[in-house]
C-alpha cells in the first residue's frame, strides 16, 4: 500500500483567478481524491437584501462577480419583473441579449487566455486578451464601464444604443471576428495544446448528468443542456443550436468555448438585424409580493436566482446558485485518478469563478 500525502492546492496558485482551497490526496504522483474548502471571498451578499431596496439590489447583484457581472444583473431584474408581472418593451430585451452575448464573448476570451497561460503559452494569452480589449472598448462606448456596466434596471435598460451606432458596431464586430479566427484555429488544432489537454479530466455523459454538471462542462460530455433554450428575453426570436461535443475531456471543454464565441458573434448580428424600435424601459410601481426562480445562462452555465418578496420594499430572500457551485462535484470526479501535474489544467477547465460561488 503506497503512502498517501496531502498537497494543498490553493488558495494562492498561479492558474487560479480566484482563491479556492483543494486538499489533493496523492499516492506516488497520482491524485486519489480531492477535498474542497471554500469561503475566502464570502461577503454575505444575500443578506444585503434586507438592507437595500429591491431596486438598489440590482447594483449588488451586478457586483457578485467581475467577469460575469452583466448577466447577474439581467437574471435578477428578470426575476423581479416576473414577480411584479412587468412586461418590458422588446427593444430592452434585445439590448439585454446583445450585451449578454458580448459579455459571454468577453468571459470566454478571458478564460482562453488564462488556459493558454496555464500551460505556458504566454503569447497566445496576450493575443486573446488583446482581442478582448476591443470588446471592452465596445462596452465602454455603449454603457460607460469596462467591467461593471450598470446597464440593466428593474423595468428595462438604463442606456440606449442608437441605430447608427448599431450599424457601425455590426461592422466592428465582423472585423473582431476575423481577428479572432486565427486564434480559434490555434486552440483547436495546435499540437502542443492538444497533447496537453486531450484525454485528461474525462467525465462521461451519465456521470455529467448524475453529478449535475452545467454549462460547457455538461455540453462537452454530450448533454444538450443550455438554459437559453428556455427562450427567456429576446432568445425566442433568435435561433441558435447549443454546441455539443462528446469527448468529455479538457480539450472538448475548450473547443465548446471556442465555438461558442463564434455562435455569440452570430447571435449579436441577428439581434442587431432584428432590433425593434421603441422605448427602453417602463415605469415600476408597487412592491414585489411573490416568489420566483429565475434561470439564465451565464458563460459558465446555468444560474438560478430565488427571489421572494413580502410586499415591502425590502426582499425576504435572495438566493443565488451559481454554475461553479454546481460544477464542484464533477471537478472532484475529474481530479480522482489524474496526475499531479495535470491538476491545475483540470481545475481551470471548469472555469472556476469563486466569487460567484461564495457570494
Amino acid at each position, binding site marked *: 500500500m503506497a503512502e498517501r500525502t496531502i498537497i494543498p492546492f490553493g488558495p494562492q496558485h498561479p492558474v487560479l483567478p480566484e482563491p479556492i482551497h483543494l486538499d489533493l490526496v496523492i499516492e506516488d504522483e497520482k491524485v486519489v481524491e480531492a477535498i474542497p474548502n471554500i*469561503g475566502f471571498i464570502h461577503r454575505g451578499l444575500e443578506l444585503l437584501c434586507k438592507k437595500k431596496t429591491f431596486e438598489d439590489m440590482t447594483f449588488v447583484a451586478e457586483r457578485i462577480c467581475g467577469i460575469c457581472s452583466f448577466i447577474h444583473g439581467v437574471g435578477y431584474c428578470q426575476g423581479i419583473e416576473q414577480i411584479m408581472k412587468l412586461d418590458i418593451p422588446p427593444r430592452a430585451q434585445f439590448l439585454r441579449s446583445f450585451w449578454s452575448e458580448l459579455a459571454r464573448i468577453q468571459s470566454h476570451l478571458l478564460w482562453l487566455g488564462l488556459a493558454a497561460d496555464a500551460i505556458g503559452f504566454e503569447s497566445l494569452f496576450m493575443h486573446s486578451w488583446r482581442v478582448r480589449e476591443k470588446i471592452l472598448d465596445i462596452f465602454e462606448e455603449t454603457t460607460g464601464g469596462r467591467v461593471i456596466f450598470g446597464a440593466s434596471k428593474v423595468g428595462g435598460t438604463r442606456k440606449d444604443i442608437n441605430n447608427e451606432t448599431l450599424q457601425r458596431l455590426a461592422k466592428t464586430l465582423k472585423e473582431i471576428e476575423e481577428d479572432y479566427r486565427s486564434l480559434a484555429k490555434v486552440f483547436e488544432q495546435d499540437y502542443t495544446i492538444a497533447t496537453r489537454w486531450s484525454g485528461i479530466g474525462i467525465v462521461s455523459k451519465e456521470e455529467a*448528468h*448524475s453529478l449535475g454538471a452545467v454549462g460547457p462542462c455538461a455540453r462537452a460530455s454530450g448533454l444538450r443542456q443550455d438554459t437559453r433554450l428556455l427562450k427567456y428575453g429576446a432568445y425566442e426570436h433568435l435561433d441558435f443550436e447549443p454546441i455539443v461535443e462528446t469527448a468529455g475531456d479538457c480539450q472538448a471543454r475548450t473547443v465548446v468555448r471556442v465555438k461558442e464565441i463564434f455562435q455569440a458573434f452570430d447571435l449579436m448580428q441577428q439581434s442587431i438585424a432584428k432590433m425593434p424600435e421603441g422605448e427602453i424601459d417602463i415605469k415600476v410601481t408597487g412592491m414585489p409580493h411573490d416568489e420566483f*426562480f429565475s434561470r439564465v445562462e451565464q458563460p459558465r452555465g446555468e444560474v438560478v436566482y430565488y427571489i421572494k418578496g413580502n410586499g415591502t420594499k*425590502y426582499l425576504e430572500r435572495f438566493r443565488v446558485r451559481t454554475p461553479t457551485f454546481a460544477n464542484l462535484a464533477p471537478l472532484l470526479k475529474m481530479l480522482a485518478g489524474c496526475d499531479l501535474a495535470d491538476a491545475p489544467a483540470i481545475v481551470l477547465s471548469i472555469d472556476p469563478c469563486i466569487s460567484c460561488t461564495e457570494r
Partner: protein
Amino acid sequence: MFEHQEIVNIEISELQTHVKKLCDEGYRLVQIGCTALDHFQIDYTFDKDHKFFDLRIKLPKEEPKLNSISTIYLPACFYENELHDLFGIQVSGMAIDFGGKFYRIAEKNPFINPKNLEEK
C-alpha cells in the same frame, strides 16, 4: 411569456420516496435552498429538459433535522453542507460530511443571527 413554475409542498417523511422517483425519471438536481421565515422553508429544485419542478418542505425552527438525499444524488452533499454551515440545520447521512468546515466563515450560522437580519 410569464413562466409558470410548479412547486409541490410535501412532508418531511415523504422526501426520500419523491426524490427517488424523480431520479428514476431522469431529473437532474439543480439546487437545494433555504429561506428562514418563522420556520425553515427548504426547496429542492429539479429540472428535466428545461422543465422546472420544485419540492418544498417546512422544517420547524426548534427541530432543524433532515435526512440527506446524497445517496440518491451525490452533489446534494455540497448544498447540505452549506445549509449546515450557514443556517445550522442538522443533516444526517451526508455522503461527504465536512463537519462544519466547508465554509470558512468567522461566525457560526450567520444567516439566522438576528443581528444580521435587521432591516435598515
